């Protein structure tokens, strides 16, 4: 077995371990009866964290073997970075777990990591050669530190989500209930994206188009999903494939829009099916599971994660980034979209920390802020890399 295959197998083991870990954490928080259930739950919890640590070690083994194979830290394309991000989230969870011993955090952190790894797997996993600007040890230092910072900050969102799952009453019609359901619906959309990619890939769907870009150049593009949106001035080149329903102007990448469309459709179908079968909001299904958690403690975990993550993020995403930018391009700051969004993330968490000084910005509000912070991190990962053009664009 070659090193890269071995590496892939490690990642698969990690993925399975996280799935099993999630179920075990589910068992750990489910004790309603007093007859020794607490003890049993404790055992489930111990097993769950062991499985999680094993998964993390396998994930680390993936990371190291891939590093040896490619010769550089495996954080240079969308697949590699996102996979590593998932790994660091698990790492940050394990760190916080051993500080606070809250099993219920695992019930959120592991599925989040699973979704992130699943998302990563939808991108080409081949190792890409490095362009000259990436050939620097700062790639390793900057990207890994920034990802670690983001992961620790993500744990505050995990704690925040858990907090809100308990604190938001699924029975009363409130804005919080609506937005919580929206957050959970978003998770279904990620599942939708994964399913759409897997299904159409499984079908071997491929349709070639020629189109004209904004500069008036004629180019070709391959769709891997039925083209709902067509590129500017498109012509279908493959026989027997679906003609696009709508043509988009050149400024919009219709192929990516098509992917977004199918993710929405499939994610929504899954969501509606679950709703129809259970006859409950997703929030209502999860709410009873987390009754055991201590809100005060969760609030502190959220705050603490930001406190721990903020300096790491500053160091990785701003300080090291500036040092590298100075070395590679001769300017430490260039208002590149990724730089700006790192600054925005930083400013946002700075606002979070200052808001904690004012009364009333603890508990629920703080939990919501943590979720918004994570949304900014995801925006920086997904939209800035894939949609906004800049020095950090991946595809």
């Amino acid at each position, binding site marked *: 077995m070659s090193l890269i295959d071995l590496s892939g197998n490690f990642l698969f083991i990690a993925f399975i371990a996280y799935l099993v870990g999630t179920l075990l954490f589910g068992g750990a928080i489910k004790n309603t009866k007093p007859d020794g259930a607490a003890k049993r739950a404790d055992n489930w919890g111990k097993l769950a964290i062991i499985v999680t640590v094993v998964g993390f070690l396998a994930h680390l083994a993936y990371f190291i073997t891939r590093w040896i194979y490619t010769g550089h830290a495996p954080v240079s394309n969308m697949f590699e970075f996102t996979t590593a991000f998932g790994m660091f989230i698990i790492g940050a969870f394990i760190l916080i777990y051993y*500080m606070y011993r809250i099993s219920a955090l695992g019930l959120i952190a592991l599925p989040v990591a699973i979704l992130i790894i699943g998302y990563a797997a939808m991108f080409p996993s081949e190792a*890409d050669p490095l362009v*000259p600007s990436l050939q620097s040890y700062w790639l390793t230092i900057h990207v890994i530190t920034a990802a670690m910072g983001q992961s620790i900050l993500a744990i505050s969102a995990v704690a925040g989500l858990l907090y809100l799952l308990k604190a938001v009453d699924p029975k009363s019609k409130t804005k919080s209930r609506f937005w919580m359901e929206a957050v959970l619906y978003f998770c279904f959309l990620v599942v939708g994206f994964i399913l759409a990619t897997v299904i159409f890939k499984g079908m071997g769907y491929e349709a070639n188009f020629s189109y004209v870009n904004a500069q008036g150049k004629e180019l070709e593009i391959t769709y891997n999903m039925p083209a709902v949106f067509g590129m500017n001035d498109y012509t279908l080149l493959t026989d027997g494939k679906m003609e696009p329903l709508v043509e988009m102007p050149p400024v919009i990448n219709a192929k990516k829009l098509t992917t977004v469309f199918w993710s929405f459709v499939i994610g929504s179908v899954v969501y509606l099916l679950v709703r129809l079968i259970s006859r409950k909001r997703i929030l209502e299904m999860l709410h009873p599971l987390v009754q055991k958690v201590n809100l005060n403690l969760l609030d*502190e975990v959220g705050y603490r994660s930001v406190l721990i993550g903020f300096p790491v993020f500053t160091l990785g995403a701003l300080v090291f980034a500036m040092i590298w930018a100075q070395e*590679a391009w001769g300017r430490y700051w260039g208002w590149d979209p990724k730089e*700006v*969004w790192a600054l925005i993330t930083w400013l946002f968490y700075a606002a979070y920390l200052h808001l904690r000084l004012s009364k009333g910005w603890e508990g629920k509000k703080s939990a919501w802020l943590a979720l918004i912070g994570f949304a900014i991190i995801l925006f920086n990962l997904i939209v800035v890399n894939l949609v906004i053009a800049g020095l950090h664009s991946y595809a």
Partner: protein
Amino acid sequence: MEKLICVCGHENPAGTKLCGKCGRPLTEEAKESKIVDMKYDGAAIRSKTRNKSIVDKVWNFFSSVKVGIALIIINLVAASIGTIFPQEFYISVSTEAEKAAYYEDTYGSIGKLYYELGLSDVYNAWWFQILVGMLAISIIVASIDRGIPLHRSLKNQRVKRHESFMKRQRVVAEGPVANGDPAQTLNMIEEKMKSLKYKVRRDGNALLAERGRFSRYGPYINHCGLIIFLAAVMLRLVPGFYVDESMWVREGEVRAVPGMEGYFIENEAFILELHDNEKTENQELQGVNAVAKNFQTNAKLYKQAEDAVPGQTDNLELVKEYSIRVNHPLQYEGYSFYQMDFRMNELSVMNFQLTNKETGEALGPVSIDLTNPQDEYIINEQAKVELLGYYPDFSGFENGEPQTLTPTPNNPAFIFKMTTPEHPDGEVSFVAIQQTIEPNGDNEYKMAFQGVETRNMSGLTVHKDSSIPLLAVGGAIFMIGVAIGSYWNHRRLWVEQLEDGTIRLAAHTNKNWFGMKKDLDAVSEYAKLPKYLDQSEEIEEKEGDSAL
């Protein structure tokens, strides 16, 4: 100024919330609250005490944390707007008209609006810079406003605090010692807290254990760092502090370095290397055929002799030889040369033969250096070619005159005057690529095109930024401050043994109550203290939120 005199006799400045000596609540608000506000330890902050003159009002505005947060959010939103479309400095057009056209052509009417509102260069907009400036002022004012009173109150802490202070802390306990000798309790607490790395002070029957006080200074340290950082950024505006020039150097050329007087750089060779991998899936998706592996300029940096005339290239002294690559700039005395761009196979020399059209007889070769053409090329005593006109980037005729678009030899065109034995007065011919015009009718001779020589050109940027050391200092101070404020926390435990031997205690921490409670558990267990109560959880339960 008005003073607040506490029951204990201590004089507090107006605006104090908790007496600096005994901790008694002084304001109505503090008296009514169940848990006192321990921000700044109840010290009077300037912005809360004065509000008369215009200076006070401005001061109060900028010292407000709410205003500070609002400024953070406004800056955040303004910065995000700049990422909607690429900023002007990332698009490769130069004139205003071209920029306007670019945004409209590429992004339609929204792009046009974006450009017209100045959002395409938002980070250089005056209003954006004012916003950043206001944030900086807010950081300075708020830090002074709060930092100094906090420092005073932390420095002058008394061991013994009044009951009303103790009872209004978040974590409190009161009661008899469970078992053992009550006379030993304070000693045991002291012993245990010292083993937990607390500093312990005693005053009669009272005890104060304190740990990590320095962490309270973290925010003020990091704010100092930020201000130094921002000041360093401003230094760029000082002439001579900042040099940012770009230059093109062709292979074999020696050029004066812009912004670095008396220095010349030579491009010995430009090297482009590509990865020889199989095309990956990502490359397919992005339509990239080959991925670059290395951009390199083999450069020599020269210094002019001391007494040389500016621009003179004789007697150059070699000071550094270096292969400039991406991530590996040439560095010399504060200046750095970065590999930024390149142009492959630029035309450098064009070779012609002065040829008789009919007989095909060649009189001799003429080789024209396109960046440095001569006025006259002498072939022999009777034959020469004069260069009457040279248009390096020929773009057509205007009023019969040939035009050049740029000074770069992309599409060279010439007007030759060919003097031959048959035509001592010369024949004139206009020669461009695949185009010859003979204004005086049929010439007997022509400049027959033989071939071209090409060379590569390297785009370098020259940088000097004397503010970097100060930036580094600011950044380092910021990181140290942030780490101190985040990774350490201030924990305090006040204990008083009442006359009947019972214990009253109160604990406070600025963050990490979990850690504080762990310490409390340890000391309670060891010294058999009464069970403590977290009053914030009590409140929460009363509000109907079941914290199981």
